[in-house]
């Protein structure tokens, strides 16, 4: 039955070449932990992506309850984690997942650096990877404010003060993020929400696609 559905679609769309492009690629011996245990260091990139997928899914469920305004944001998080079935687990996955992404990405960066995998011809993929690093840090920064509790609020106050102290562009960055020259309030929360839920995840998806297309075209770097 499945085969017949596949054939029916394949006859009209010719999806076999597309599917073989995705499925057919080699896993060389030196990156396969089944053959060399030390090759587990090559797992960090995959685990970073796996955790990013967890972040996307848990984040989508969180937005079913979260309300981005200063009166209801806190209440909605409180309701989510105390009343909603498994709400604490979903929020916990998103909260701890953020830390796991950072740790895994850091380890992946160190692996790529110390195996010299960023060298010619893989320079562009390294640059895209560092951009992903920045986007993830941005997601961590903007997500921290959203529960609108004391630690979230005052951490953001300090961060915006630091941003403001940057010469020339500091003031502009502050107003762009906070929506006001002095206050940190309703505008700030909606902006951080928009950046956290639309701008940065969009950028992240594009950069991840570029990262994966490049690694597929060039292949994994050889053994040292």
């Amino acid at each position, binding site marked *: 039955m499945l085969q017949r559905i596949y054939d029916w679609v394949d*006859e009209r769309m010719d999806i076999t070449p597309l599917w073989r492009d995705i499925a*057919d690629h*080699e896993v060389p011996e030196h990156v396969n932990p089944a053959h060399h245990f030390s090759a587990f260091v090559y797992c960090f990139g995959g685990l970073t992506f796996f955790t990013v997928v967890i972040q996307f899914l848990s984040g989508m469920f969180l937005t079913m309850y979260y309300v981005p305004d200063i009166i209801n944001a806190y209440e909605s998080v409180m309701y989510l984690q105390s009343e909603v079935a498994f709400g604490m687990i979903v929020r916990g996955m998103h909260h701890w997942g953020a830390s796991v992404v950072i740790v895994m990405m850091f380890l992946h960066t160190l692996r790529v650096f*110390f195996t010299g995998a960023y*060298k010619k011809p893989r320079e562009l993929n390294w640059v895209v990877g560092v951009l992903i690093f920045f986007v993830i*840090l941005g997601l*961590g920064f903007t997500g921290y404010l959203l*529960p*609108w509790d004391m630690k979230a609020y005052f951490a953001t106050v300090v961060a915006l003060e*630091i941003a403001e102290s940057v010469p020339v562009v500091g003031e502009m960055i502050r107003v762009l993020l906070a929506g006001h020259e002095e206050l940190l309030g309703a505008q700030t929360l909606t902006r951080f929400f928009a950046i956290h839920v639309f701008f940065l995840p969009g950028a992240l998806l594009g950069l991840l696609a570029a990262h994966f297309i490049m690694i597929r075209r060039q292949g994994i770097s050889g053994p040292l």
Partner: protein
Amino acid sequence: MHRGKGMKFVGDSRIPAEKKPNIPKDYSEYPGKTEAFWPNYLLKEWMIGAVFLIGFLCFTAVNPVSLEGIADPTDSGYIPLPDWYFLFLYQLLKYEYASGTFELFGNVIIPGLAFGALLLAPWLDPGPERRPSKRPVGTGLMLLATISVIYLTWEAVDQHDWEAAEEQGEILDEDDIQEVDMDHAGYEIYEEQGCIECHGEQLEGSGAAGPNLYDLPYGAEDIANISVEGIGEMPAGMFDGSDEELEIMSEYIEAEGQPNGDDDEDEDEDDEDEEDE
């Protein structure tokens, strides 16, 4: 790829009518023990992923996420702290040569150089050599940066007053607030002397500014001393009434705002004792 004459299409589309075989590539002639990603390797990878996911879920289940009290911009006593992965940047700004007049070093030059070098690593280290031992400068700088980040994070965690942080963010539960005797002379003095500003209408405290005054480990005399001389972050000279007033108030606070002993719980216990007899 088939070109030129004799190409057949599905209907009037550009899809070739010829069917292509849907079989995996042959990796038997590849070097070493190369295997196919699909499906051989993916099945093993999923097992690692499953173990990782179970570990992660167990961690999440036993570590509930904390939520502090709702954001209160007027609480100026709050000690801020970013999430742990920004602590190294936060800590950097605390050092003398990275803050104040040297602020530019802490907030632009040092992080800018570090992250800029990370971004441009392929061009700063363009040689063909891949082994870390064959490119000591790059390896050394990366190790230095990694150790610095870990050290700064460690220092920030070490210098933070975690007990105060936990107290200042605590959500005041309604169960934690005890009803006090607001008609007592002690309460009047408590209000007049401004204690109420920081320690609350029901002696329940107010986040970072002042702790609650229930169940204090002090006697009435100590409380009187603290009211005059201050303690910890509480400044001296808060109380400027007469000695008599001071005595009434400190006794009132020692009794947790219930100087007449009309504590319901005590009464209940007494009743039970009588019944037993």
